[in-house]
Structures are given as C-alpha cells and as structure tokens.
C-alpha cells in the first residue's frame, strides 16, 4: 500500500496540474477582455495607437479562417485565394474596430462572467457587460484548435455578428462584386473614429 501511495499521489498531482494549466474558454475571454480594457483605460495613447496595441491580441484569439469563411458563406467558394486573404485581413480589422468601439462606448462598466458551456471542442461563454445605464449580454462562441480556444462568433444582445455581417456583405458582393466590398471596407477603416457622445 505504501509503495503505491507516493507514485499515485504524484501522478494525481501531475494530472491535476495539467488540467489546471490548460486555459479554459472563460479564462481565455477574461484574458482578452482584461487586456483590452487595460489598453483602453490608458490615457497616454490616442485611439489609433490603442487599436494597434489591441490588434495583435485579438487576431490570435479569433479563428480568422473560420470567421471569414462563415461570413462570406456562399461567396467564399467563388472567391480566389487572393480575394479570400484580402477579405480575411480587412474583415479582422473591421471586427477589431467594432469591438473596440463597443467596449470604449461603454467603458466604466464591468464584465460579469456568467456561464460556460463546453461540448467537446466547442464552447459558449456567456458574459454580461454591466454599467449603471445598461446591461448587455455578450456571448462568445469558441472552438478549440491546437489546444487554444478561439472565437468564431460574438453574439451581442442576441444578435450574432457573423450572421449580421453575412447578410450585409452577401448582398454587397452580389450587387457590387468583391471589389465593391473591398472598397467599402477600406473606406470604412480609413474613417476617423467618432468619439462616443456623453449623455
């Protein structure tokens, strides 16, 4: 009995530490949100600089391929590899900017992590943004790829970003082609950010 006790204890510790070390979906979201909020609260950077800071971080946590493909849906198949790449790059920037805008608009609140549901390699993390004026449910849908949890959709107040973008972009591609879409994306990204107005 004594002879197996120590190895047993050691292996238990090893296993539990491994489990502990893997970052779960909620922790992943927490990391992103905390870092983004930190950057946003910095007073020494202007908006463009803040966006640059956050840019790399968001990109590692978004499954770019998956989210771009789902957004373009039917059009993805018809697109050439160059078009796909160009779209992916532009789209991720748009997502970052949108996300940043939203968070900045509501800065001064806190984020509550409500719930985490995991099913195999997929997970849904429910959070709530709470300030004295609003309570906004934000849900992240994630997939685990190579051990890292990545976001493939964000659902804000029951409105899925991917579905939303898909229907708008889909119509734009149908009527104006990819070039029309790219032109619009680029001009939107070039717009100076509009500061949120106080009430």
């Amino acid at each position: 009995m004594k002879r197996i006790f120590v190895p047993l204890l050691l292996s238990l510790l090893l296993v539990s530490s491994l489990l502990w070390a893997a970052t779960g979906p909620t922790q992943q979201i927490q990391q992103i949100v905390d870092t983004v909020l930190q950057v946003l609260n910095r007073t020494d950077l202007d908006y463009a600089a803040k966006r640059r800071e956050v840019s790399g971080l968001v990109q590692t946590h978004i499954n770019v391929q998956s989210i771009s493909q789902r957004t373009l849906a039917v059009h993805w198949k018809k697109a050439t590899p160059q078009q796909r790449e160009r779209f992916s790059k532009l789209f991720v920037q748009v997502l970052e900017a949108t996300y940043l805008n939203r968070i900045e608009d509501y800065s001064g609140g806190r984020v509550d992590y409500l719930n985490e549901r995991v099913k195999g390699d997929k997970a849904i993390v429910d959070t709530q943004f709470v300030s004295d004026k609003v309570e906004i449910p934000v849900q992240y849908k994630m997939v685990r790829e190579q051990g890292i949890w990545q976001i493939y959709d964000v659902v804000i107040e029951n409105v899925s970003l991917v579905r939303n973008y898909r229907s708008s972009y889909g119509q734009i591609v149908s009527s104006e082609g990819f070039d029309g879409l790219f032109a619009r994306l680029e001009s939107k990204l070039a717009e100076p950010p509009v500061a949120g107005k106080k009430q």
Partner: protein
Amino acid sequence: MRVVLPLVLCLTLLVLSFAPLLAADDFVRPAAAAQTGGDDFDAEFDDDFDDDFDDDFDDDFDDDFGDESEAQPRPLIADPLEPWNRGVFLVNDKLYFYLFKPVARGYRVVPRPVRTSIGNFFSNLSTPVRAVNALLQLKVRDVGTELGRLAVNSTIGWGGLFDPAGYSLRWKKKSEDFGQTLGFYGVKSGWYLVLPIFGPSSVRDGAGLVVDQFLDPLLYADIKVREYYSLRALERVNALSLDADSYEKFKRDALDPYLFIRAAYAQHRLANIRK
C-alpha cells in the same frame, strides 16, 4: 377619432398580411419549433446548447458547402420591398438627425433621474401589453411577474415613477407584444417593413403594433385627442433622450446600415419570440 384611425390601420395591415404570409420566402425558422416550454433545467440547457451548437455550427458549415445554385446567401428576412424600405429608411434617417435627436438633446436639460422616472412611468402604463400577450402565449409565470410589477411599482413605486420591483425584488420586465404572440403561434414574420418613424418592423410585427395600441390604458383615459398624442410623443422623446446614440453607432460600425439593421432586427425578433 382616437380609435378609428388605429382600427383602420389595423385592418389594412391585417388584410395586407395575408398575401405575403402565404407567399413569403421566409427563412427564419418557425418559432414554435424552438419552444420546449421546459421547466426542467437540464432539458432547456441541452436544447439551448444543441440549438446554439449543432444548429448554428453545422448550419453555418452547411452554408459553406451548400447549394452551388444559390446566387447569394439567404437573407434572414424576405425583403422584396427593399427599394421602398430604403426610401423610408432614408427619410427616417433625416428625421432622426434633423428633428428627433435635436429635440431629445434639448430635452436633456431635464435631469436624468427625472427622465428615468418618466420612462418608468410609461413602462408601467404599458404593462397590459406585456401581460396580455404573455397570457396569450400561456406564459403564466410571466403574467404573474408583470402583474406583480404593476402592483408593486404603482404603490411602493409612487405611481410607477420608480421600479422597486425590478431593482429590489429582481422581477425583471420582459418584453412581449402581439407580434411576438403571433410569432409564438407560428405566424411568419412576412416581409420586412420599415415604418415611418417607428423604424424596422415586418408585416406581422406592424400588425402587432397596431393591435397593441388598443391595450394602451391612455386610450381609455378621459383626455383629449391632442393630449393623448402629446403624451405618446413625450414617451418617445423621453426614451430617445435616455438612449446612448445607438443609431449613430450602427451607422458607424456598418458598411450598409440599412442591411445591418435589417439583419439585427430579424435576429432580435427571433430571439425575443423564443424567450
């Protein structure tokens, strides 16, 4: 006079709604299918989970490998009236920036807590809309919550100016309207409609709006027509003054605000109907 106008609108919309309801290419899943009505937490959990995961995840993937003959992705809501809707959308946009928003901004001289109280007051008045529609959808618990809120807020909440029911008792208000009731029973949304002033709607929800007018207690109060419409206008301006520039944000974030709002509206309604 107060009753005739809404009645005529209601009848018109109901008549109009039959044609598109039969013919509409509505790709929104029937609401009834999603309702499990489960009190059992696990059943709801799994359904929600499966709904979110399997339906959404696989559905999305199917889209990607989907029907090659489809020229474009299926819209969330049918919109054959798009040119007309875009026109109304543009008019609403101008009205918003040149009329409503400036008025709401001017109105912001009224201190925020007062405006919040006024908002609470009107929200309390619209309890019948929520309660009756919850009843029609057989959501008994929600009916109880709404009636409870009405009782508590009208008494302890100083005639509805405050919301102790929501704040202290955590009895949260739940939006219900006749459009949702219709959706609950499987009526499809019909064509997307942009209504003047009111904004995004659909044939079903527009008809629902008209029906809900009759549940407004003010309609039966002893006040003049002019006073009635003034109070309604006050309600709208007040709500707008409390709003944090949401419309401006949509415009800023979206490549095409019209399409973006349309998609958001369709999803929002579907989610509300399910709840």
